[in-house]
């Protein structure tokens, strides 16, 4: 015990000789990111200006979707849902009993790379894929088919508060846990979550999936940004205009998608590490900063909700006519394209690497060799520029869409163009400022 304490003491007294790696950040620092950021912010600001002269009907037309004659395949969706449930259980088994190396383990790669980065992106950028692969709906159906009747069938009065709390817990695990990629640890948590969700679904009925099960809530929320949906195709965000106004907890949930996503970039910057008193060139490891990370996550979300509320209050006062709460809830979904843009921007670089581990794993499962995982594209200025501009583009497009969506929502709420503009002005300025913040995040040196 004493020896261990002494070693711990030595550890604090003798900081390690760490070798922070140059990585693609070295090239990002060589890029003229100041100019790129200026261009991005100007684009978003220009969108705001343009909206002052675009007639209201044109905005409404912009978001009118085209009907596609797609066949509905409910039976197929049931089959894929059951297949997804089976795959989930199989993956949990590989997490418990499979390779301990996270980059060779099917569960870790499936959860973090395929699902959390890839499928969430497809959900927001393409279509509602979750509807096809939701394992929990399949589990709920399974429960019903074996005669489980939910004893509590009434609507939960909490709205989506349980989902909001579960999402924050998930974000805490993702950002602060020392080993979220450790296969057995991830398997245990996934298994516990699946079991808890099944119990809740069998207790409250499928309603739980849209009020308490944060993944379904998150995926259905992101599906509102997707261009494809309900057999139609439109400008991303058109589904937001077709969706009902969210309740309070749901509106905060939407804001927290952005807040948590933003913190998941901020927490890697030199700026944040210096606040924590951590030398960014010798990051001490996640376990040394669990509490500050959790507090930072909550603070970032609180700050975002507060800033949003202030802009909404100011806008409501300028425009008059609609209550603060009404405005707060109405405009919250306009944040979703920004959150989706951040998701793409933040994870692009790690996805480019980690998806190769998925390919390599697939190769070995099929009896082939392990494939080489390259990071060569982080090693040339040209490729790093393409990656950076793609990330920046995702952030900028997200903000432009958000401003368009917010404007369309305002027109619908207020009815007249002038009041809509006034109500939107503070929020639009906030979004311009957030563009600056988002692009600064991408350009900042990182220590993790």
């Amino acid at each position, binding site marked *: 015990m004493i020896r261990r304490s002494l070693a711990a003491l030595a550890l604090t007294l*003798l900081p390690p*000789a760490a*070798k922070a790696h140059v990585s693609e950040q070295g090239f990002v620092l060589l890029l003229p990111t100041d100019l790129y950021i200026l261009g991005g912010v100007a684009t978003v600001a220009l969108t705001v200006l343009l909206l002052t002269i675009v007639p209201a009907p044109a905005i409404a037309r912009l978001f009118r979707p085209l009907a596609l004659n797609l066949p509905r395949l409910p039976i197929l969706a049931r089959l894929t849902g059951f297949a997804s449930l089976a795959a989930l259980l199989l993956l949990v088994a590989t997490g418990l009993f499979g390779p301990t*190396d996270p980059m060779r383990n099917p569960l870790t790669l499936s959860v973090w790379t395929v699902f959390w980065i890839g499928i969430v992106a497809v959900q927001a950028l393409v279509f509602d894929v979750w509807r096809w692969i939701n394992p929990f709906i399949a589990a709920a159906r399974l429960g019903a088919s074996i005669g489980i009747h939910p004893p509590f069938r009434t609507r939960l009065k909490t709205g989506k508060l349980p989902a909001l709390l579960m999402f924050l817990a998930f974000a805490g695990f993702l950002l602060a846990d020392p080993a979220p990629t450790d296969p057995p640890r991830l398997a245990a948590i996934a298994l516990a979550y699946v079991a808890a969700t099944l119990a809740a679904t069998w207790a409250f009925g499928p309603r739980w999936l849209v009020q308490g099960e944060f993944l379904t809530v998150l995926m259905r929320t992101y599906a509102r940004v997707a261009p494809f949906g309900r057999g139609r195709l439109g400008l991303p965000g058109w589904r937001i205009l077709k969706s009902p106004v969210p309740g309070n907890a749901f509106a905060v949930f939407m804001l927290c998608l952005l807040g948590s996503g933003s913190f998941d970039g901020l927490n890697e910057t030199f700026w944040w590490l210096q606040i924590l008193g951590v030398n960014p060139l010798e990051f001490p*490891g996640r376990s040394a900063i669990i509490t500050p990370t959790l507090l930072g996550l909550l603070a970032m979300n609180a700050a975002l909700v507060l800033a949003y509320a202030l802009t909404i209050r100011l806008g409501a006062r300028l425009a008059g006519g609609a209550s603060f709460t009404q405005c707060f809830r109405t405009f919250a979904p306009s944040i979703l394209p920004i959150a989706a843009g951040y998701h793409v921007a933040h994870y692009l670089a790690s996805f480019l690497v980690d998806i190769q581990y998925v390919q390599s794993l697939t190769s070995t499962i099929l009896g082939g060799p392990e494939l080489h995982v390259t990071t060569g594209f982080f090693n040339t*200025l040209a490729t790093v520029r393409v990656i950076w501009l793609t990330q920046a583009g995702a952030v900028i497009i997200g903000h432009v869409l958000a401003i368009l969506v917010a404007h369309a929502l305002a027109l619908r709420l207020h009815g007249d163009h002038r009041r809509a503009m006034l109500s939107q002005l503070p929020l639009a300025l906030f979004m311009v400022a957030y563009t600056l913040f988002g692009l600064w995040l991408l350009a900042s040196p990182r*220590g993790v």
Partner: protein
Amino acid sequence: MTNSTKSTITRRGALKTLGAGAGAAASLPLWARYTHAQSSEPIRIGFQVHRTGIGAAYGRWYDRTTMAAVKKINDEGGINGRMVEIVAEDDGTDPKRGAEVVEKFATQHNCDIAFGTLFSHVVIGSAPRAGELKLPYFVVSEGHHVASGMLNRYTMQPGITDVKSQVQAMAPYVASTLGKKVTMIFPDFAFGHDHRDYFTAALEAQGGQVLEHIAIPPAETSFTKYFPKIPRDTEVLYHVMVGPAVLTFVKELGEFFGPSAPPLFGFIDSLEAVDISSPGLEFLEGSYFWEGNPRYAQADQTEYDKAYRAAVGVDDNGASLSDPKDISTYAHMFGCWETLHTVKAGMEAAGYGGPDDRGKLIEAVEAMTDMPEGHDHPQGAKRFNGKTHQVFGHQYITQVNSGRLDLVHTTSIEDTLYPDEVDYTTQPL
């Protein structure tokens, strides 16, 4: 073969066994090796790897090198006729997790030994647990913490030299060839301070002098304001910047000095896994680097380096055979290869049969001294110090020449030696 697990290991006996040839298992008839390997439990090596966290770029290459070394060892009959199996666990480049991983190796995975990991803080965080569990812990971190006496009898560094010997071995060449008046630029934390302290002392011993120590705050990303502090009569500029701002540092240095810069001397740690021909690095043309193992295949490349490169999948430019832009961590990763071969030699000398022989394995490795250059030691000959648990070896100085690093000097092993700071053999097993 020395399968008598009860044999007591003496220093002499171990040396004799080692001297008998590389891997006594190889002397078994092929069928015997085969059947033995088939029927025995594998030797399980817990591989602590930086899969995530700041060490992940190194971890990728440490993993490849480790897998290549294990393949070679197994193709040659394994260790004591038993196949080697790697049990990899991610330490997250996190000291606390490092200790947990070491514990898992001992208690959950039934590993015979633990091995791996580069970042010093992970080693320092993990070694006490390895000592408590009496699990031999072979590290590849080049920190001075092993030889300084900070760790314990179960922690050894037999495959890579430590930073103290690397830095001090640079002084004779710098003073005799490049200049005696040196200005040092280094990041203002432990890594930089090690360089400052070891090199300043070593240069003074050579009759040279460090004119100025310029410590740069670790979070700095713009450096021009520090350059006017470089004294005008500086003959050599010694730099060891690390982190994402390294390329900016070099670029700004070039813009500041133009063609009239003093000779530059740096550690490749700054640019490990970075393409030397990257834009902004043109200014490095003609400058000198320490390399643990020359990234570019040299004119007098040994057959050992050739075979090693092929095994780990690296081309003559130090890049992956699959992607010429994917540069390996060539200066460091040989340490994994050589450590595993030393483990093999140690287990064979100890007649290692299972966890009960862990103490014998430690004694067998402590008994080692000279390790000749060869397929097991492609970086060069080594000399192991059983008391300090640290290996010593040749260091390489290369010069940037048309965007590649050409060898200009190889230090002697003697250049790297310093007085013992600990005798781990006095600690109980």
